[in-house]
């Protein structure tokens, strides 16, 4: 603890309440939108609520982060504050790990238990009486009830775009590490270049991911409503894609701050937080590539 400087406690802040109002509008709008859409009711008001909520939330995030950056720049934070931020980010990432763990748990349960049982195998194979003649397979092309859920014609192979995307993300983790190394030696120019390349690789990844979704919907009949394979495929790759998007936005902000000279070899928590997040997203992808595409 650094002697006489005491831990900085901000006096008061409008951002949390602004953020709460934003969340209220956003989710109330989104809920109304979904419900009215399924009931065939007009959705204009819902869209307005949703949009205003989203804008409020963006306003909050920008304002809050600006305050934090300004406080940091004016030297209000000590080493203990730095550790608090690190703890906060580390446990936030842990919560994200738990979220993806739940999705992977669902995938394993479906693959190892639910689908084989429906196909008549294993301890609960009596489930096959529901749809006699249904055969377990993975990826599931023919669903138990193909009139309720029309199965996909085929699924995305692992060794095309997904493999390319794996290479892209792994490379981006390496370039990010190179950027970090450069920053640690206070070489700002290469740090900026490597980080910019990282963001670029992220953007290309997302571009290919969208490409893959278009392919799935337009040619393979692999959709959200084509049974459990499509459900899991889009849920897992979709949430991962959202995390790449978020990580990309974080790294872009960090890039701008790096260009402005906010970071040095001894003071760069924001940079490292963004980097941790990016590596986490990368690791999730590798597990996802193995268990959703390859095996």
């Amino acid at each position, binding site marked *: 603890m650094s002697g006489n400087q005491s831990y900085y*406690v901000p006096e008061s802040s409008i951002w949390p309440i602004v*953020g709460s109002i934003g969340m209220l509008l956003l989710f109330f709008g989104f809920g109304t939108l979904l419900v009215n859409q399924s*009931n065939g009711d007009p959705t204009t008001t819902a869209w307005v609520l949703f949009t205003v909520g989203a804008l409020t939330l963006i306003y909050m995030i920008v304002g809050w982060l600006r305050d934090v950056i300004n406080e940091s720049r004016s030297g209000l934070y000590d080493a203990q504050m730095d550790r*608090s931020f690190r703890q906060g980010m580390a446990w936030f990432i842990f919560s994200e790990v738990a979220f993806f763990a739940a999705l992977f748990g669902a995938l394993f349960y479906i693959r190892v238990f639910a689908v084989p049982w429906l196909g008549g195998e294993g301890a609960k194979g009596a489930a096959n009486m529901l749809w006699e003649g249904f055969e377990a397979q993975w990826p599931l092309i023919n669903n138990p009830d193909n009139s309720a859920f029309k199965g996909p014609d085929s699924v995305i192979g692992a060794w095309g775009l997904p493999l390319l995307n794996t290479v892209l993300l792994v490379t981006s983790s390496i370039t990010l590490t190179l950027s970090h190394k450069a920053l640690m030696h206070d070489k700002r120019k290469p740090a900026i270049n490597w980080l910019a390349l990282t963001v670029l690789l992220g953007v290309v990844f997302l571009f290919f991911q969208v490409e893959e979704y278009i392919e799935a919907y337009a040619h393979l009949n692999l959709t*959200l409503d084509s049974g459990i394979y499509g*459900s899991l495929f889009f849920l897992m790759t979709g949430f991962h894609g959202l995390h790449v998007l978020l990580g990309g936005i974080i790294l872009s902000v960090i890039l701008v701050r790096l260009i402005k000279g906010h970071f040095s070899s001894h003071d760069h928590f924001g940079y490292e937080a963004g980097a941790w997040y990016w590596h986490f997203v990368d690791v999730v992808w590798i597990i996802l590539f193995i268990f959703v595409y390859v095996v």
Partner: protein
Amino acid sequence: MSAVADAHAVDHDHHGPAKGIARWLFTTNHKDIGTMYLVFSFTMFLVGGAMAMLIRAELFEPGMQLIQPAFYNQMTTMHGLIMVFGAVMPAFVGLANWMIPLMVGAPDMALPRLNNWSFWLLVTGSLILVSTLFMDGGAPNFGWTFYAPLSTTYGPDSTTFFIFAIHILGISSIMGAINVIATIINMRAPGMTFMKMPMFVWTWLITAFLLIAVLPVLAGVVTMMLMDIHFGTAFFDAAGGGDPVLFQHVFWFFGHPEVYIMILPAFGVISQIIPAFSRKPLFGYTSMVYAVAAIAILSFLVWAHHMFTVGIPIAGELFFMYATMIIAVPTGVKIFNWISTMFRGSLTFETPMLFAIGFVVLFTVGGLSGVMLAIAPADFQYHDTYFVVAHFHYVLIPGAIYGIFAAVYYWLPKWSGRMYSEALGKTHFWLSFIGLNVAFFPMHFVGLAGMPRRYVDYPVQFANFNMISSIGAFLFGISQLLLVYIVYRAIRSGNKAPARPWDGAEGLEWTVPSPAPYHTFEQPPKVD
């Protein structure tokens, strides 16, 4: 432990609280936020309690008296959801906010702005949850466990809003838990090593870990529900290769640790209070820490004991049965330690101590019926009967709620600078104690006799016990209004409290004046 607190020497560059509503909307002060959490959770406790009163009024005698079956289902669902997410969890977060910085010698929570957001997101989520009562088609009506496909294929329109309420409440709790962990790990005063931390801090550290581990799982399962309802996915629909039982697995992977989230901080409170009023240090502090950690780890391995009758393979039944029964071991260690702390102590029975002893006795009752329920073959008889209702109310009311009440009486002098009326406090305890047992003990009997839970009506042979239950419930419900009066009276006209109103109480929180100044420990105290 002894400590040097210089709470007076630090008021130069800091103002007191802001004026008016702005203080509460924008505050970053852990004491303000703690107070808001406590007041809000008590309000929700009364709302959820009113629903319980309505349920018991309807069940007062067989036949249909007051409300329609559809509305009855909404009441049981909302009662459970509000009590879990709106009352018990936030009350413990409120206690954490108030007490953890004071107990570890920190100037505030580690991330004060985030702390404020956690609270106001709690309000946001609760607003959305309660608003479902006024929507077309009514509030969620599928029980607080919201099993698919009842909640997906057959749920009302308001289910979508319920899902988003859970998302927001989950975000709020995760952020609150991150704050607690960061505070405990990073903000302890010099000399406050981990094995010197008060038990309340230890139990909250482990609770916060559980929250961060399982609330994202809850978010995952409600997200799958949302997808099934609106985007045509087949997670919980076997026609598309999914499985409704998948819902139960994911839900209870969250749900079982959740019950420890609601009880571990209460263990911590009791472990503060029993030594204070026994005037002895806690017996077996180290074993207490390990027992809490063991309970937390085991809580990830037992979830399917809620699903014995759903059709899981026999190996699963056996595994989850034995794993569940192992939890009785660390729990037994704790109860042994509390009793040993009291053994040969100089006991006095002020209100916090009464609630603490009530906790030890009645929580043990709930624990023992838990062991009965854990026996898979026996559970086939008990499953979904009032025996289960009796069991979890015995762990949640004398467990979680008594823990909160005990904490409120114990620390109210520190918060308000005033003493409550001991006579009224004891009255509150005895009325609650009698009401609770009259309400819930008969449920064991009707449950064993086969009365199913969650029905608006019942056969006449259950009439007498149900009438007794309802009378007990009304008594319990009304006696909670007394708590409002006790706190109000204490704040308005209670005797001034000294810095350490309990002569046996230990810990840093008693080294600052009562009421605790707006800012405390701006320079960390030294702990030997």
